Each structure stands twice: as C-alpha cells, then as structure tokens.
C-alpha cells in the first residue's frame, strides 16, 4: 500500500487497476442467478420437503410454511442490503455485527456461519450419495449406509479440492446449470399437477387455496417448528448479496438482485411443494423423507428416463450449494483470522491457487469427521441435523437484522424510508427468527421430539444446534485471552452520508 516501503528503482509504488472485468457478463441478471443458485432450490426441496410435511400439526399446509418462511428472509435481505451500503466491500455477519454491536456478538455470528457450514455439509454429502446411486437405479447401494457414506465423503473431498484449487464456476456456467435446474423443477411440478387433474392417481389430492394459508396450521408450535426447517430453503442468497464489486452500481444492485432472487425462489418452492403434495399426498412424502424425489416420485410423475433429469437437477443443485457453502465460510474464517479473532493460520493463502488454504482444508476435514460421526450415531440423527442447522441460521441471520437497525440508529428517524427499510423490517426479521429459535428450542429439546433417539436426554436438533452454539460461547470466552485486542474493539455507528443520497434498492417491497 505505502509506496515508501518499496525500495526506489524497484518499480516504485504499486498501482491497483481494474482490467478485463466483463461488466456485461457479471450483471444484474448474474447476481440474481448467483442468489438463486446459491440457495440451491432443488437440493433444498429434496432435503426439507418431507420433513416439513412430517411435522405434527402442519398437515396440508406445508406450502404455506414455505411461503411464510420467506417473510423473515425478506426482512433480513433488507438488513444485508443496508449493511452492504455502509461499505460495499465490508463483509457479512461477522464483520457487520462486530462493527455494529460489538466483537462478542460478531464473533458468535462468525461461529454460527462455520457451524452451519459443517452441519450442512454432512447433509449435502448424504443427499449427494443417495441421489448418485439412484441416478443409476442402483437401489441396493442407495440403501446401504456404508456405500452412501463412502460416496458422501468422496463428495466432500472433491468439493473441498475444487475450492482449494480455486475453481469457481463462471457466471455463464452457473446460469446454464440453474436454468436447467429451474426448468426441470417447473416441468416436474406442471406434469404432476396435470396428472392430478387429468388422471387423479392414487392418494392424489386436488390443491386447495387453504394449502397456502398459514392460519390453517393447527398450532403456533407447528408453524414455528416448520419455519425453523423452512428458513433453510432460503439460506444462501447472501452469497449473491455480498458479491458486489463486479456490478456497475455496487451500492444498490446486489440488494435488488437479492430481493428478486428471493421472489423467484418463493414461486419455485410454492409451486413444487404444492405439486408434490397434490400428486403423492403427505403420507408418501413423509415416508420418503430422505429422498423425496428419487424415492419413486420422480419416476412416477415424469416416467423413465426423464425422471433422471430431476435427480441430476438435485445433484447439480447440491454441488452448487456445496461450493457456495465452502467458499464463503472459508472466507469468514479467513476474515476472522485477519481481524485477529481466530488463529492466524486460518488467514493463510495458497501461494499458487490463491485460495484460503488452511481455512478451506479445515472446513473440509471437520465436515468429514462430523459426517462420519453422525452417520455412525444414526442416519435419523443426520436427518434431524437439518433442524439443528436452523438454529444456527436463525441466530446469525437474526443478529444481522438487529445489527442493521442498531448500526443505523441515528439515521432511522431522518426519513420514513430509512425507518421502514433499515429499521423496522430488519428488526421484524430478527424478532421473527429469534421467536422461531426460542419456540423451536422449547419443542425440540424434548427427548421424544423426533424420529431419532435423544442425545443425553435432549432432542437431537437442540443437542446439536444449541450444543454447537454453546461450544462457541465457551471457545469465545477462551479466545478473549489470545485475542484480547479484537475483543476490546468498540462498536461504530453508521456514517450519516451513507443514507443521505440514493434511493433505497427495495421500493415496493411487498411480496408477502
């Protein structure tokens, strides 16, 4: 940075320039694509749909849960949008919360991201394993825990290696893969619905408007438990929000792209969950929890060999999701290391591949250890860990919402716009997520909450989800000793100039 540090005659000061950035290729559309692809609709549905339907009291209202889960997500999208504007390059939850609320909350936000990453990797690996075998109709292998785990571990190894070597899918490749995934899902849904009305297959039910009415859900408990699962399906769009330096107008475009990508997701989730439920009925979805699409639904709706398209869509979706899980998480731990809140080796960069080497490999290794450990416990626990993941996501998204309003507290009352978009919506999102967190905690802590056996007398989702966060608290307290400087950091307040000009990105934000 400082030219003075460079010896004279050796090139003088170093200059930083932009070259070869294809402004048009990495445009608004690409940002939307990245937001949707990172959320991985195909994989998200495969991993959650059966479980949401299975929650006692949800009944036929699973599509409603998918829609309602969008509300806190939309609110938090506003928080991301506004925090992003404060400093378009600043980071995500870890950096923002550290700035706005303080180092302890920020550290815990970063920890929650890492925990969520490790837990989801095990689940992704499992789905990748099962669907890989189903692609070749090798059902005996798909039912063998050993075979699936083996492929799952290989999956994590390959995905970690790809991130380590620093290969990122180009915007064009992502557009193609996502386009194929979305078209496949829509074709599946349309064919399923046509068959429901035309042939009325066994167990099929004609969709009713009440399916998307959350007030038909029998209890608040059922809604909260379902939403803890369903927030997961929108998880990942933050990857799109935080990629910004390539877009022409970096202070607003990523936010708007995030909002549009969320609306696209909403449509896909509503359509596919309604179609799947109408075609097969809830009982079949619950029975095939672990492989909703490959367990007969795809072949029955689309017929062979077209059903394989849906399996391929879930697999490409899972690979996109793996990448958008490892890369941002490795950058979070790298960021924590550089801000002296985490061991310095996590800040190491590979000299040739230029990836966060130690961060990436550690995430991969921990994911494998966790995956093998949890599969040995039981595959039911693995399934329940998706619920555990919800606690981490609700925590770090929620705290980001509060951080946004707190960071802009002196600007909120300067205009109605500020108050609504930077204050009210983020806080509302935070409150909903924390509310779900508490309610789901009370339900899932019961030993008999779930399909899997209790861990230490506590329901597995709470034992894993809350256990991991508490472990974080312990490590954070210990970390005060080596990382004293970081934990002494004082929070900041937003610079008034940030919101002074430019209209907010989210006008007419009424999707819910």
């Amino acid at each position, binding site marked *: 940075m400082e030219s003075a540090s460079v010896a004279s005659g050796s090139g003088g000061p170093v200059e930083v320039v932009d070259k070869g950035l294809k402004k048009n290729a*990495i445009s608004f559309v690409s940002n939307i694509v990245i937001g949707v692809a990172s959320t991985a609709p195909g994989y998200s549905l495969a991993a959650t749909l059966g479980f949401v339907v299975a929650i006692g009291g949800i009944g036929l209202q699973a599509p409603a849960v998918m829609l309602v889960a969008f509300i806190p997500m939309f609110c938090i999208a506003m928080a991301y949008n506004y925090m992003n504007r404060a*400093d378009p390059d600043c*980071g995500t939850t870890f950096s923002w919360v550290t700035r706005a609320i303080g180092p302890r909350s920020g550290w815990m936000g970063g920890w929650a991201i890492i925990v969520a990453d490790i837990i989801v990797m095990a689940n992704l690996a499992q789905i990748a394993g099962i669907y890989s075998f189903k692609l070749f109709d090798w059902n005996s292998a798909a039912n063998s825990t050993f075979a699936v785990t083996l492929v799952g571990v290989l999956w994590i190894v390959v995905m970690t290696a790809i991130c380590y070597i620093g290969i990122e899918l180009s915007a064009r490749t992502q557009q193609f893969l996502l386009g194929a995934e979305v078209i496949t899902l829509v074709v599946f849904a349309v064919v399923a619905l046509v068959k429901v009305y035309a042939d009325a297959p066994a167990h099929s039910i004609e969709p009713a408007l009440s399916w998307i009415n959350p007030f038909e859900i029998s209890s608040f408990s059922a809604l909260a438990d379902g939403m803890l699962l369903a927030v997961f399906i929108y998880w990942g769009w933050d990857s799109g929000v935080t*990629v910004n330096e390539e877009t022409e107008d970096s202070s607003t475009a990523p936010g708007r792209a995030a909002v549009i990508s969320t609306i696209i997701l909403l449509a896909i989730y509503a359509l596919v969950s309604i179609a799947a439920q109408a075609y097969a009925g809830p009982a079949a979805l619950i029975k095939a929890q672990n492989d909703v699409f490959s367990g007969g639904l795809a072949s029955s709706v689309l017929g062979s060999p077209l059903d394989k398209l849906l399996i391929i869509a879930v697999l490409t979706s899972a690979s996109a999701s793996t990448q958008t899980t490892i890369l941002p998480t490795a950058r979070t731990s790298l960021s924590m290391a550089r801000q002296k809140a985490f061991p310095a080796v996590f800040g190491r960069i590979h000299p040739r591949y230029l990836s966060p080497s130690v961060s990436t490999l550690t995430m991969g290794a921990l994911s494998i250890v966790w995956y093998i450990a949890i599969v040995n416990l039981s595959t039911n626990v693995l399934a329940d860990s998706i619920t555990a993941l919800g606690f981490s996501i609700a925590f770090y998204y929620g705290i980001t919402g509060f951080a946004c309003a707190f960071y802009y507290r002196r600007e909120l009352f300067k205009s109605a716009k500020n108050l609504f978009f930077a204050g009210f919506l983020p806080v509302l999102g935070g409150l909903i997520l924390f509310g779900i967190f508490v309610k789901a905690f009370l339900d899932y802590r019961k030993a008999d909450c779930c399909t899997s056996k209790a861990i230490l007398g506590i329901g597995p989702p709470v034992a894993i989800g809350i256990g991991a966060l508490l472990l974080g608290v312990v490590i954070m307290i210990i970390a005060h000793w080596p990382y004293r400087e970081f934990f002494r950091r004082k929070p900041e307040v937003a610079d008034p100039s940030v919101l002074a000009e430019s209209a907010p990105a989210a006008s007419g934000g009424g999707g819910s």
Partner: protein
Amino acid sequence: MEDIILGYDGSDCAKAALALATETAKAMGDRVVVVWTIEAHHTGGEVKDYEDALKEMGERVTAEGAEVAAAAGVETERLLVHGDSPASALSELADERKARVIVVGTHGESPLKGALIGSTPHKLIQLARTPVLVVPAPS
C-alpha cells in the same frame, strides 16, 4: 520505450519468465511491468478481507520481482490488476499499453491437469491480441 507485460506470481516458472523478460527489456530498451492479477469472485462471504490478503501478497511478490529486474538496470513498474481472469486482465492491459509482448511462466503440466485447474498461458494464447511468450520452469 515499449512495455513488456509480465504476469508474475513468484513461482519458479514466473521467475524464469522474469529473467527472460528482464533480458529482453535490456536488449530492447523496454520497461518491465510486473503484474499480479486478482480474480473477481462470483460467490460471496467476507470478500473484503480475502481481497486484502491477496493484495498484500501481490504487493510483496511484485516488489520482489521488480527488484530483480531493477537490479539488472531495467526500468520497472508494478501493477495489481483486478480482472475476470488472469488471462483477460493481462491481455486487456497489453492492448491498452500497446505492449511489445506478454511474458508468462508455465508450470509444464499435462493438458488434462491444465484444463482442470485452469491454465493461464492457454487462455492467454487464445485471448491476446499481443504476442505471448511462454516460459517453462527450469527443469
């Protein structure tokens, strides 16, 4: 005086490329532009700290490279270039400077490995409108 654009990452083959670029610059009376490229990212996370880390690395590596060229009595310049890919960044820079030649090292990998992990010389040869000189690492 014309520019010789050197894509430099401090690896063995990059050092070989540096030596050849320096020699050529001396003979032609050219300047060596030592370039470190930073690729744009399509996925998020805490990109800021990551890019800072890459810039620091580029700062250090280009200084080392420029020092070698300067010690040989050649005029040098250092650049950190932010681009879609190293190849597109180097070729665009060369266009803009109307450079004499782009010099890069090659790790000498098999075509398959190059295709898998991404080979800058290959892409550069396809993209560049400037002559490209590819230098292998000393065996």
